[in-house]
């Protein structure tokens, strides 16, 4: 039963107030892309046992999507940030690197 802080309204939201949205920072491939690119965009997932960047929506709250960095093996949440982010904030990346020296980055 996760709690994640919504970066928009600063509510520590209960998992039941959220809806999940799986992997974050996917690049959309549309018409003109190759079959491989489109497949990778739609289906290939990092699915790491460890640091994972993912999407959540504060569905029962402000309705906004946000992103979270969470360890899928321990469920530790390193931080959350708005969905309008092309990459995780540097401070968050630094924090994760400090806690998980083996982490290979979000890409």
């Amino acid at each position, binding site marked *: 039963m*996760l709690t994640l802080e919504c970066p928009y309204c600063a509510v520590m939201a209960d998992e039941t107030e959220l809806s999940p949205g799986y992997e974050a920072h996917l690049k959309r491939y549309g018409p003109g892309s190759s079959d491989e690119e489109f*497949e990778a965009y739609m289906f290939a997932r990092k699915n790491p046992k460890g640091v994972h960047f993912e999407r959540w929506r504060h569905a029962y709250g402000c309705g906004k999507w946000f992103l979270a960095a969470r360890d899928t093996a321990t469920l530790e949440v390193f931080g959350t940030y708005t969905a309008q982010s092309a990459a995780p904030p540097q401070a968050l990346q630094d924090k994760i690197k400090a806690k998980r020296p083996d982490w290979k980055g979000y890409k």
Partner: protein
Amino acid sequence: MKRYSAFALAREALSNHMGWERAWAAPQPKAAYDAIIIGAGGHGLATAYYLGKNFGITNVAILEKGWLGGGNTGRNTTIIRSNYLQDSSAAIYEKARSLYETLSQDLNYNAMFSPRGVMMLAQTHHEVRGYQRTAHANALQGVVTEFISPQRVKELCPILNIDGPRYPVLGALWQARGGTGRHDAVAWGYARACSAMGMDIIQNCEVKGITSANGVVTGVETTKGYIGTKKIGIVVAGHSGQVADMAGFRLPVEAVALQALVSEPIKPCMDVVVMANTVHGYMSQSDKGEMVIGGGTDGFNNFTQRGSFHHIEETLRALIETFPIISRLKMLRQWGGIVDMTGDRSPIISKTPVGNCFINCGWGTGGFKAIPGSGWAMAELMAKGEPGPLAAEFDMWRFKEGRFIDESVAAGVAH
């Protein structure tokens, strides 16, 4: 291998059961094998068994990180059915179901296949049409099912509340030869049979790397040292992505927690398996008397074998509405398993980008019922290097082509 029977039991009783052999050996790994199966769950063991039985390949090691049968094989709700809609699904699940029919005799180990019947309740008109469609498909597929009336539903399962008021039962898809099995016994029975064929089941042996030369596998690095092999089958539900990563490819798979629970045991009150998809819950009663209840999956990647509790509450709300008498029973134990979910929620039994490396994964919430069929198809793939008809459609490239095997077939609700 000493055979199991009532006579053997009586004979051993006279010698205080001191004469029983080990069910399976505990060998150290050899330097090399003809084939290595990674993962000694039901699917991995069944693959090994049919490699030996159907293809005479017995120089096989089955490597297991923990204890055999300790993954999803040992933590599911043991439902066996094959009333699937799509042809390729129906084919492999029906193969599995028919192998379950004789599994105890085949393995000389009582896997307790109990064809008590599985019913899937239709509680909306939309569901009625959907299950009727499945019944038509099944008729062509050679899967014996029928669409039954609410009255027949009530006869088969008197504790069911068919009158709603919220979701009255409008009928059900009934597979009389579906049922349940004893999950642990399936793994143990296969393990015993594999061991008897001379295969090495190596527990507490974690694969740390996969080696290859010229794009073809050569062996595995393990916590018990390097082991050479000509072929590898990866059968590690829940951790497929991690092992695939060792081999150097990525899968269309995400790992999520699936939950289940059992009640305290009560005297028999339910002789069939009931699945109620409108309200999201399913239930059967184990031979011990526990009500075995399946919950939903979480919507986030998770490797903890613990799910989020609200799914249990949702399931129980649904089941108390469906089976009002269970309200005063108590939840004895709840748990989770990590399941692989693919892009179309159907499994993958496939060659991979790496030569002689094969994968079997993505069974999602439906793996136990498939074990014998999955092993049969995977063994054929590994032995021949090409899929047979059972596995043909389950390749990992179907997503690129948009060739989904989609069992959910309910895009939206009607106008």
